[in-house]
């Protein structure tokens, strides 16, 4: 199954620049002095119930793999200490790509005798997975804090639980389509069996019948074909209960984006308001599969990840097995780059990556790549020219948008109009900016516009909530008032007749006597009687109750 039934629209074939970091095996990062583990949940929301979930006290010694932050619910995964050391507490420091947003970090001062963690070996060929149940897998994913390692950091346990029963085909995404980013390829060369077994465990948890491992195989000529390696390992691992295929897809950016990959493999464009699960499909990254294997079989928490540290600014581009919370500057130095160079440092790839503002900031579970591009001379980087509507961006846009029109709307603050033209369907792949002859910062404008729209939606939701609350309160008050009204009227009618009035008075006297002879002291009972009376009165008039 090598042919693409219907490739995704747009896109562009780019030089991959991956041979250099793949020329050597994954390098373990040396022991850092400290680790700052970023604490931001999925989609940048703050972590809830931080105090309650924190499993360690400041000043407490921790061992490698110790639980720092407990799993809250499926949306807020657990976090573990990558290396032994002392937990020094919560620190608020800047995020690498956003100078304004300070994020909470769990800081660990790494012990001087802590051994750097070596990249794990590949799984043995004779491993038996029988006896591992779906629940075992999901529990292991939760316990070990496994999240989507393709960049989204979505908790894998939740993704699997949502897909259970609905997913027929599990797609394992090894399509590292963006130039320079070679962490997925490095992992596929190093641990093909762990990926295959991890995929089988995920498929078991999902009750999926098929697994498709998709990849581009960009450096097959230089370093051997990954397709062949994976197929050999499939043979070596022997027959299994699920069908497994290895599919090579054409090199075309952004082939690795979830919906674009599904389009290429199945010919199906997942509607914008639906998830792949609705079509019996689920996409998971190769590194996530390997980490699901580590979690389920070896109970190894997710504390390290492969990060590609590359680009012309590095003397020795490499794939680093880095503990989560490593400083970007340390990784750059490891790869022979100089953090004080006047280079353009990017977290992520050259197209979709974001500029790094603070090299002291640290990587998280979703960091794929630290890229150093040489800063062009000022003559090469001219200020942007006006858009000439050349349409280059239209022809490369994988979402089939009109990027130049969206840009103009975003620039003029017409975000609602931009939304009508599909602003929220932009996947921020960066191709439009890459081909723009006017060097316009298109993606930047889209991010701004999308942030504005999201904030607007949040405000609207908050307004609606407030309005619902207000309406409910109004209704409650009205109901109370009409009930009081009815009661008062009923009493007034009863008092109309002389006999009834007499008996009312007697009843009141009897109540008062009963209270006096009660267990309370006279002053207290008097007070109570009074309060009761005024309370009764108050109930009728005070709308606040």
């Amino acid at each position, binding site marked *: 199954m090598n042919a693409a039934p219907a490739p995704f629209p747009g896109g562009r074939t780019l030089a991959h620049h991956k041979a250099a970091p793949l020329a050597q095996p994954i390098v373990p990062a040396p022991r850092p002095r400290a680790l700052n583990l970023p604490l931001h949940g999925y989609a940048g929301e703050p972590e809830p119930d931080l105090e309650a979930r924190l499993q360690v006290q400041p000043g407490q010694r921790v061992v490698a793999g110790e639980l720092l932050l407990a799993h809250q619910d499926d949306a807020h995964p657990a976090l573990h200490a990558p290396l032994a050391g002392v937990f020094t507490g919560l620190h608020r420091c800047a995020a690498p790509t956003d100078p304004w947003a300070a994020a909470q970090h769990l800081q660990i001062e790494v012990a001087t005798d802590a051994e750097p963690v070596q990249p794990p070996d590949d799984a043995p060929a004779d491993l038996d997975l029988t006896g591992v149940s779906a629940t075992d897998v999901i529990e292991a994913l939760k316990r070990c804090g496994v999240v989507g390692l393709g960049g989204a950091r979505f908790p894998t346990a939740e993704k699997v639980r949502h897909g259970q029963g609905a997913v027929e085909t599990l797609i394992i995404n090894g399509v590292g389509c963006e130039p320079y980013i070679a962490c997925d390829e490095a992992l596929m060369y190093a641990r093909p069996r762990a990926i295959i077994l991890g995929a089988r465990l995920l498929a078991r948890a999902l009750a999926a019948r098929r697994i498709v491992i998709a990849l581009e195989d960009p450096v097959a000529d230089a370093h051997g074909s990954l397709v062949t390696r994976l197929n050999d390992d499939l043979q070596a691992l022997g027959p299994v209960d699920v069908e497994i295929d290895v599919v090579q897809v054409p090199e075309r950016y952004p082939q690795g984006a979830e919906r674009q990959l599904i389009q290429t493999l199945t010919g199906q464009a997942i*509607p914008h308001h639906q998830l792949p699960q*609705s079509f*019996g499909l689920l996409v998971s990254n190769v590194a996530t599969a390997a980490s699901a294997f580590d979690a389920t079989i070896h109970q190894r928490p997710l504390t390290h990840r492969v990060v590609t540290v590359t680009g012309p600014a590095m003397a020795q581009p490499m794939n680093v097995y880095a503990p989560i919370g490593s400083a970007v500057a340390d990784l750059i130095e490891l790869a022979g780059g100089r953090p004080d160079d006047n280079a353009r440092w990017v977290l992520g790839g050259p197209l979709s*990556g974001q*500029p790094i503002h603070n090299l002291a900031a640290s990587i998280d579970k979703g960091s794929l790549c630290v890229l150093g591009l040489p800063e062009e001379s000022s003559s090469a980087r001219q200020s942007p*020219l006006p858009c000439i509507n050349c*349409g280059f961006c239209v022809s490369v846009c994988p*979402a089939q948008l009109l990027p130049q*029109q969206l840009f103009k709307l975003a620039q003029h603050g017409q975000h609602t109009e931009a939304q009508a033209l599909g602003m929220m369907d932009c996947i921020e792949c960066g191709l439009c900016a890459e081909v723009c002859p006017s060097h316009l910062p298109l993606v930047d404008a889209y991010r701004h516009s999308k942030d504005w729209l999201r904030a607007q939606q949040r405000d609207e939701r908050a307004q609606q909530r407030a309005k619902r609350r207000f309406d409910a309160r109004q209704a409650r008050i009205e109901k109370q008032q009409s009930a009081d009204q009815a009661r008062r009227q009923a009493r007034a009618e009863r008092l109309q007749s002389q006999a009834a009035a007499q008996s009312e008075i007697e009843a009141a006297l009897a109540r008062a006597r009963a209270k006096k002879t009660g267990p309370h002291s006279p002053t207290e009972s008097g007070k109570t009687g009074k309060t009761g009376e005024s309370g009764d009165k108050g109930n009728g008039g005070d709308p606040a109750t």
Partner: protein
Amino acid sequence: MSVTTGPHRPSRVRVSTVMGRVVIALIPAVAVHTWVFGTGVLVQMALAVGWAYLFEGVMLWARGRALGPFISDHSAALAGVLLALCLPPLAPWYVGATGMLFAIVVAKHLYGGLGQNLFNPAMVGFAVVIIAFPESLTHWVTPRSVDGAVPDMITVLRAIFTGHLPSGMAWDALSQATPLDQIRQGLAAGQTLTEIGQDPMFGGLGSAGWEWIALAYGLGGLYLLKTQTITWHVPGAVVLATVILSLPGWLIDPDQFRSPLQQLMSGALVMAAFFIATDPVTGSATPKGKVVFGIGVALITLAIRAWGGYPDGVAFAVLLMNLCVPLIDAYTRPTIFGHGSARSASSAAKRTERP
């Protein structure tokens, strides 16, 4: 450490590259044009480009814009070359100057400069001179392939700078109506196309000299397609629409209706297809819209040729279609990925089955 937003690897293809490629693609046409009509073409071009840069510089200064990045984008030069190619080679100097004044000052800068203009600057300039100097615009030099010679440099310079020919020469001897004009007048006089076509000015493919120029424009157009400077949509639509629209009439009555080949090979239709209607700024932004734009240009050009008061209508066709661009864009937006009609869930899962 400098921190700047993306694009992290800005495109090597700049606006000046795009405009420069179009100028390069015009070289074959300019060469053939010069061979057919003489050095007057080059003089017109030098003058027009000179005016273009002058007006561009003055307007940039007047609008308080940076001179450097905008003067070097080659867009002014391109407008100058395109207008010069539309002018009769012996037209007086003020014709080109007026054309460039309206092209650069009015059509381009008064509408906001590069990227903001609604109308194709070169065509605005040309439309103005068609209306302002109808007399000068009819004096087209007789092509070399018809009378074997073109005016020499002295004649050219005198005609352009004084507006008069050297003594002993007459416009009648030197120039003739363009084939399109000849057909229009002939048909109006009740002649059939077969009778009109006897004249040697109609050459092998529809009009002597002009047919080679059209082919040279096509060659340059292929270069633009090859370098992905333009897409196939506009030229494809113009050429195909011309053929489809002119074919039925010609099949029914070849004495009254011109053949598709003659329509394409005379006048400025091929030039418009690859170089004028493909102007990105004033054209449609969407792929479908580009097709509609091209069809519109062909349709209006053929209509003006058949029924209008001018022998060729490319300039007016392009300007009229420029007017329609906002409407075209609004109705031809591509379907956003994931917004089309979805197939059923089971079929998607089945597609990944082993063959």
